């Protein structure tokens, strides 16, 4: 059995103040807020105390908010951290680092319902491209670390992708449901192998935020949206 633990990063500057944020790609990501660091410290303390996750490998997205979260938490796991670029959030392209207002003025904000194949800006990914990249990475990681326990320090979009890919949903247009993944929450999947059947993923838990219930972003109504959209941009 292969275990995947997907951990969303702590509160980032883009999470805390979306209106004034810039597109948080490799260039624009300003990392964790003090609250985001505290959330990550809480997770580290929880994992160290319970010893529940006996991880063989820890992978982290290279985006600053995920990498910083990983650096704070990983001492509790007692293993070293490996960078995994393919568990980065949906890529925005050349809009990386621009304010939402600039993006809106230069490219307009996408509404993926109406234009699922639209990219935020040149060089970015559209929904289907993002899901293909994320799904391929999850499948590759599960194969490479078959039978092991893997912790991924990653993003809301990658956790969305795990649901869509493992549940076998359509990935060229956005799904009819959304997830509401809290900062530093744990989502756990197990891969089971059965005779004469394809391997099957099993969801063990989603959005386990026991350690930060009292420490969530004030604007707790904000889901983990990877990039500015028509809905989020106003």
């Amino acid at each position, binding site marked *: 059995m292969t275990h995947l633990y997907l951990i969303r990063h702590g509160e980032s500057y883009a999470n805390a103040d979306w209106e004034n944020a810039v597109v948080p790609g490799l260039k624009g990501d300003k990392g964790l807020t003090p609250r985001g660091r505290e959330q990550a410290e809480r997770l580290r303390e929880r994992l160290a105390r319970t010893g529940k996750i006996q991880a063989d490998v820890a992978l982290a997205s290279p985006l600053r908010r995920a990498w910083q979260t990983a650096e704070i938490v990983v001492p509790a796991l007692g293993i070293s951290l490996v960078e995994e670029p393919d568990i980065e959030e949906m890529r925005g392209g050349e809009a990386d680092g621009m304010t939402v207002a600039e993006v809106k003025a230069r490219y307009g904000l996408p509404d993926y*319902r109406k234009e699922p194949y639209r990219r935020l800006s040149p060089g970015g990914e559209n929904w289907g491209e993002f899901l293909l990249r994320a799904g391929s990475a999850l499948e590759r990681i599960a194969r490479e670390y078959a039978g092991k326990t893997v912790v991924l320090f990653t993003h809301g979009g990658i956790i969305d992708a795990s*649901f869509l890919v*493992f*549940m*076998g*949903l359509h990935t060229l247009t*956005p*799904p*009819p*449901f*959304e*997830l*509401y993944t809290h900062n530093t929450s744990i989502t756990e*999947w*197990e891969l*089971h192998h059965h005779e004469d*059947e394809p391997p*099957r*993923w*099993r*969801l*063990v*838990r*989603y*959005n*386990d*935020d*026991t350690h930060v219930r009292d420490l969530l972003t004030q604007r707790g*109504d*904000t*889901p983990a949206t990877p990039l500015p959209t028509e*809905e*989020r941009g*106003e």
Partner: protein
Amino acid sequence: MADVNWMVATTLHFIRHGESVGQVHGPVERRVRGMRGDGGLSPRGVWQMERLRDRLARTGEIAADVVLASTLPRTMQSAEILAPVWGLPLVREDDLHELRPGIADGMRYDEAKARYPRADFTREPLQPAWPGGESWGMFTLRVGALLDHVTREYAGKTVVLVTSGGVIHATFVAFCALPTLRLPAAWFATRNASITSWQVRPPDAVWPRTRLLRYNDDAHPRDERHDVKEEPAR
């Protein structure tokens, strides 16, 4: 902000019953637990529900407007333990029933297997589990229709539904728009006395209509040594 629209959503908290008599593995005790075979909660099951009751009373995290319970003994008994948290009357809802087993109800699994051909839902999801029982397709249809009814009847309210693992699995089928006439590509492992929470918006609201808030939340103290996962109907 379109997010405001989630404030008009109906919130559904699904609670799986505590461990039941006969849920424990083993060829002799393990019985088909329909209306006849359900022996109610085991002592450990009672304990689990009391821990959940104490947690909910302490945190006040679920402000229920209505509490629905499946009519099976193990779910009614679980709901009765929780009821003082809200002081509301329990509404009996027969359509929250676990997959209906038909003629094998009350038999030991090995006995039932020897006497009747058991449909393997992996290969034949549209055949009844046992004669007179439900197929996977009938089950997901029944649960989907119930969820539609509940979200209309209690629009905008907070609803607690005390039910069985299979029904919680079927919420993913209905709310994530998974194929209904075959088993999901991924599976679930819903724990006793755990909470799974969804929000559903009115049909005319902006997309997406549903969102998952948490799955398998059993943060209240539990007797982990004895935690038993229910095997899904296969």
